[in-house]
């Protein structure tokens, strides 16, 4: 069954603002998640410079033996990336949907300070609902 292991959101300076773990392997330590986030932020930036073609917008997909990493960068530099099982479909559209949820329930929240860790109940609720829905849809196939 194709599944998503974890979801990260990082702000434009590379700091982790949201981390959600869906895997059964257990939660990563907070410090480790922060390290992974800033590591990815730097790799993403370096890849833009390394590209032989000009106008590269950074890594979109990283494929390894045991996982796939999909990354979506918004126009403002906020990055949404998900670590999932190899061969999972439609993570791109899920990431775009998470971006929509972010603009709705985080940015329109007057109690959210921009670039700070996300602590919005509505965002969590809707995110869980949509990932659940995706899971059910995949199981039904």
């Amino acid at each position, binding site marked *: 069954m194709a599944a998503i292991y974890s979801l990260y959101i990082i702000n434009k300076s590379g700091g982790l603002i949201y981390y959600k773990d869906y895997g059964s392997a257990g939660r990563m330590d907070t410090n480790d998640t922060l390290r992974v986030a800033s590591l990815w932020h730097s790799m993403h930036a370096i890849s833009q410079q390394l590209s032989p073609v000009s106008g590269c917008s950074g890594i979109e997909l990283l494929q390894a033996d045991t996982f796939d990493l999909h990354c979506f960068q918004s126009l403002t530099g906020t990055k949404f990336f998900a670590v999932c099982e190899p061969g999972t479909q439609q993570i791109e559209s899920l990431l775009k949907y998470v971006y929509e949820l972010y603009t709705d329930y985080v940015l*329109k929240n*007057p*109690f959210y300070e921009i670039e700070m860790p996300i*602590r919005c*109940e509505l965002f969590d*609720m809707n995110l869980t609902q949509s990932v659940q829905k995706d899971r059910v849809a995949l199981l039904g196939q």
Partner: protein
Amino acid sequence: MIGVGKVKQYGNVLDKPLNKGKTEVSLSAFAFLFSELVQYNQTQVDNIGELERRLEDAGYAVGARVLELLCHRDKGNRRETRLLGILSFVHSTVWKVLFGKVADSLEKGTEHEDEYMISEKELLVNKFISIPKDMGTFNCGAFVAGIVRGVLDGAGFPAVVTAHFVPMEGQQRPRTTILIKFAEEVLLREARLG
């Protein structure tokens, strides 16, 4: 004929006829504006009670104007004199114009004679707002409570209006209740009118 089929542009917004209207506004645009209103007021106050009061005052100004406009547009300049009349005006007409739908329910309070409640599953202004845990019972619906207070005050029914979250079992989000407590004189007048 000249000008047929073209929308007439008014130089001054005060020249626009009052009967035109009922246009739609982007929800996102309103949400951002309201979010900014709340954030601005947060910087001006020291505590949550003050913040609620400020939001209410902002709503009061809206309510007073909405009453005048709707009396002219929808009611043909007739004035409501009875309690139930003004309450159903707020519950249906005002809600329809401001939020695009009538309020979910209008109830009379069981404990006190002077209390009425307008309930809504989710207030439009609260649609995208998650209150942090450390703010306790603060509700941005205080803005809507202010609007209701403005309408009632302008119509001659002074009242104290507040917004409350009422947790519902089986639902993750609590529903919102606007509690209206009328002043003594309103009830006396109502009793006199029979």
